[in-house]
């Protein structure tokens, strides 16, 4: 056990690409946790997708031993946090395991919205913040300007800012000294029943669920009987240990210490991030505060392109969930797409990651329906129905009105783009809140925007309209009544459920128009004219016609080459077999995929 006064628990808050992983690598290297030859770029990020996207999904914790200038040796626990808004709950749990945070900002880029959002979260959690300006050796670096920005947000003395180059190692020692000097040691009560917080968990094929814990009160011993308070699950501590960064078992973790815990539990669902672990025999009276059930924000139908892959998709989702308890799904049947699952995600990025992993790691070819949010339908009888899929929207006769989730959006932009950003957000039905000049050149804008408007390409639009300079973050807000309608798309008079969407009344025409035009292009001509219509209730708001096919015959049977001609026809027929029948209309799989692509 380590003397709590010699422990410093901290995390690094940074925007993507601002050098968090490089800084972590440098700290590990400097403190000797990793021999230089073992250094692998960005050691903390383990999954391929995370590496490619330059983000961290799963938090992790590494223990460093640092001999400070005062001659004492300190244990520094670097707790990694996810960098994306979709995972803000995980971020808050990780931050809660720390007493301090390094607010790391790129000397060329300045403060970004996500960083700021997480910094506010850290301040709200009572963390001590050390402002760090990174990449000071870049030719485009403006450390003074960025430092002024940081101080504008955090307050404090210009001398508080630490300048580093994580790449070259400049300033690392000053930073380590600041961690020791300025961050407080952990609190908590040693002589009280065990309370440790689970701030991360993941599934390992061999070990089952591995969780990262921070001991707040008491101590945890190897072999001890434990209880997870939120799920009321009891099990023994098979192994406890610390990450150096390799897993190293220990017999005991005391107050303020950070490590991992393995019990016999195999289902990730039973061990939740934010839960409190206590002693099964002498249980704590109350869990640590802050636990929340994972709450999906964005929903989409996932269907196997090949109907025969349904079971494989189910197995893949089951396996993914072992690792990701925030993923929820239930079977869904679409007339157009067959059997699949309606999945709930923490956000758009989470959705994309899940889809990519399903396709890449499980070799599935998927069709995803347009992402939707969870609406609330208020019925004439006073009851309320959750609507996670446009198909679930009750009939107009019983529907009084609909409310939709709003989110609190924060945008940080160079001031020259304020007008552009305002225009974009107004188009997205946003309501303006506060506006603050961080510096004369940088503005922080606050809005209330329907989540559904963020779900579609908002981030891309913001980036492209501000040449990549604006950044954004959002957090859940309240539900508000909106003038929403469901647009149905009919193919030859038959509604195609996969293409229906709940949209704002003023958007209905545009959505319908775009969809019917797209489908007219994508669906091959049939034996008869096929009307493609967009309808709100019984009212047709847009119509296109796929003209009947006129020519489907090739030239003569060349020099008697019947075999080749037959094979060609058979191949074509095979292609048609993969089409989905919607009523009497043959629709190729690609038409579904392309029509649902969000590229307006």
């Amino acid at each position, binding site marked *: 056990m380590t003397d709590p006064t010699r422990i410093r628990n901290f995390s690094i808050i940074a925007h993507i690409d601002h050098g968090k992983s490089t800084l972590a690598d440098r700290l590990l290297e400097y403190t000797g946790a990793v021999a230089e030859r073992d250094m692998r770029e960005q050691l903390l990020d383990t999954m391929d997708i995370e590496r490619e996207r330059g983000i961290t999904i799963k938090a992790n914790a590494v223990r460093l031993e640092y001999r400070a200038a005062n001659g004492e040796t300190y244990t520094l626990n670097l707790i990694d946090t996810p960098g994306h808004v979709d995972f803000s709950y995980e971020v808050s749990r990780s931050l809660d395991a720390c007493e301090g945070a390094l607010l790391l900002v790129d000397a060329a880029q300045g403060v970004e919205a996500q960083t700021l959002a997480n910094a506010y979260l850290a301040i709200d959690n009572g963390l001590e913040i050390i402002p760090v300006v990174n990449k000071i050796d870049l030719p485009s670096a403006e450390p003074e300007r960025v430092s002024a920005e940081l101080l504008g947000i955090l307050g404090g003395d210009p001398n508080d800012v630490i300048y580093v180059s994580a790449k070259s190692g400049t300033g690392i020692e000053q930073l380590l000294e600041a961690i020791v000097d300025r961050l407080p040691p952990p609190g908590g009560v040693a002589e009280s029943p065990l309370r440790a917080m689970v701030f991360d968990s993941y599934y390992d094929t061999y070990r089952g669920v591995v969780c990262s814990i921070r001991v707040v009160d008491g101590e945890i011993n190897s072999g001890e009987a434990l209880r997870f308070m939120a799920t009321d699950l009891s099990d023994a501590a098979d192994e406890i240990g610390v990450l150096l960064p390799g897993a190293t078992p220990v017999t005991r973790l005391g107050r303020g210490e950070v490590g991992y815990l393995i019990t016999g539990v195999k289902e990730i669902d039973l061990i939740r991030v934010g839960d409190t672990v206590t002693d099964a025999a002498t249980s704590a009276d109350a869990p640590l505060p802050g636990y929340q059930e994972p709450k999906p924000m964005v929903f989409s139908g996932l269907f196997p392109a090949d109907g025969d892959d349904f079971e494989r998709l189910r197995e893949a989702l089951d396996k993914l969930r072992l690792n990701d308890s925030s993923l929820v799904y239930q079977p869904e049947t679409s007339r157009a797409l067959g059997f699949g699952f309606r999945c709930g995600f923490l956000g758009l990025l989470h959705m994309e990651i899940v889809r990519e992993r399903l396709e890449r790691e499980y070799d599935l070819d998927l069709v995803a329906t347009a992402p939707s949010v969870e609406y609330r339908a208020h019925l004439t009888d006073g009851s309320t129905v959750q609507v996670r899929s446009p198909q679930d929207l009750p009939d107009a006769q019983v529907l009084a009105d609909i409310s939709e989730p709003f989110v609190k959006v924060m945008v940080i932009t160079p001031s020259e783009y304020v007008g552009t950003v305002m225009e974009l957000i107004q188009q997205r039905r946003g309501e303006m809140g506060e506006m603050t000049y961080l510096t004369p050149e940088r503005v922080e804008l606050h809005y209330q925007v329907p989540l559904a408007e963020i779900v579609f390409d908002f981030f891309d639009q913001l980036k492209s309209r501000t040449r990549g300079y604006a950044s954004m973050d959002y957090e859940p807000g309240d539900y508000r009544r909106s003038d929403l309608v469901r647009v149905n798309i009919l193919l030859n008079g038959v509604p195609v459920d996969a293409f229906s969407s709940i949209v704002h009344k003023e958007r209905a025409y545009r959505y319908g128009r775009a969809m019917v035009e797209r489908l007219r292009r994508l669906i091959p001509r049939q*034996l008869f004219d096929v009307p493609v219509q967009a309808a709100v209730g019984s009212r047709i708001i847009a119509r296109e016609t796929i003209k009947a096919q*006129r020519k*489907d015959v*090739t030239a003569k049977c060349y*020099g*008697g080459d019947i075999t080749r001609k*037959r094979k060609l*026809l058979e191949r*074509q027929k095979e292609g048609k077999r993969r089409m989905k029948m919607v009523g009497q209309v043959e629709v190729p799989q690609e038409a579904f995929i392309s029509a649902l692509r969000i590229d307006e």
Partner: protein
Amino acid sequence: MSDPGALDAAAGERAAYIHIPFCHRRCPYCDFAVVDLGEQPTSFDRYITALEIEISMEPEWCPLKAVNLGGGTPSVLSPEQVGRVLRSLDDSFGLLPGAEVSIEANPEDWTEQHATELRRVGINRVSLGVQSFDPSVLASLGRVHDRATVVDAVRNAHRAGYDVVNLDLIFGTPVESMASWQDTVAAAIGLDPNHLSAYALTVELGTALSRAVRNGAPGPDEDDLADKYEHLVAAVGDRLAHYEVSNWAEPGRECRYNLTTWGQGEYLGFGLGAHGHRDGVRTRNVRRLDVYLRRIEEGVSPEAGREAMGEWERERERVYLGLRLRAGVETGEAGAALLASPAGQRLLAAGVVELHGDRLLVAQPLLTDAVAREVLALDPFD
């Protein structure tokens, strides 16, 4: 109107196809087995000798009712070389009296002397590769003749006493306007041929046209092709009988060789890349000239592959091939299976196929392949 019984009967006749692969240049849309003489000068005599050997290697068979020399450009051969091939066929199998002996010819090759001499060695039907009367269309198809050449070629054929003069047209070339096609059709009809064939330009893989289209050049347009086809059908009217999707003829002048093909009849195939159908087996020859010549000269069959079909496959094939005839095909088992299938029901409902007595026919010939695909997908009745 052609007599369906007479057309069906042709399927029982024996035919032979001779492939003459040589061309002075390869046309941009062509994917046949062709030897571009500009790139690969070749001795015709050596090839003719190889053909003679291949014919002599073929086991004994029935006398032939139809012979077709296709290509490539068979008209590049001398009458003497053509004569050698025909004699060889006659020696091995015999040519029946009144047999159709047909050659494909480029109009510029079809001089009065050439026509006359070929007639003398036994050719009695000529299919002229007219394609179009529009110079810009001809240029884009890689053709070098002009309108006057075609007029002369037709006159030469008549003077030499050919039984059938077929004009072969291509429609739907991207540079071809509707007016241009109307003019081509009028000009072709004006020459009073007793046989006419017209094919939609098709983008075949591996051709220069296919590469151009892939690189963004315009390809044939479905509606344009359909408009042009419909114009042709209307313009020909009752002058000639529309007996197959792409063929018109005076009754009795239908191409017997092609009728054999569509009627699932049997034919021998000789030469580079040639296809045969004998004793229920479909065969194909190698497509490379050096390989073909070497094999023959070593006394080895130039066959590159063969396909024997089961009973049900043959039945399906009978129907899908026969549906190309405007008179349709005897319904039979596969026809009945089609009509009983959901796809067949849809085709009936859409008026694409019709049942006339015991014959199943495609009422919208432009959709023939849509029907053929369904026929080929049919499973046999239990």
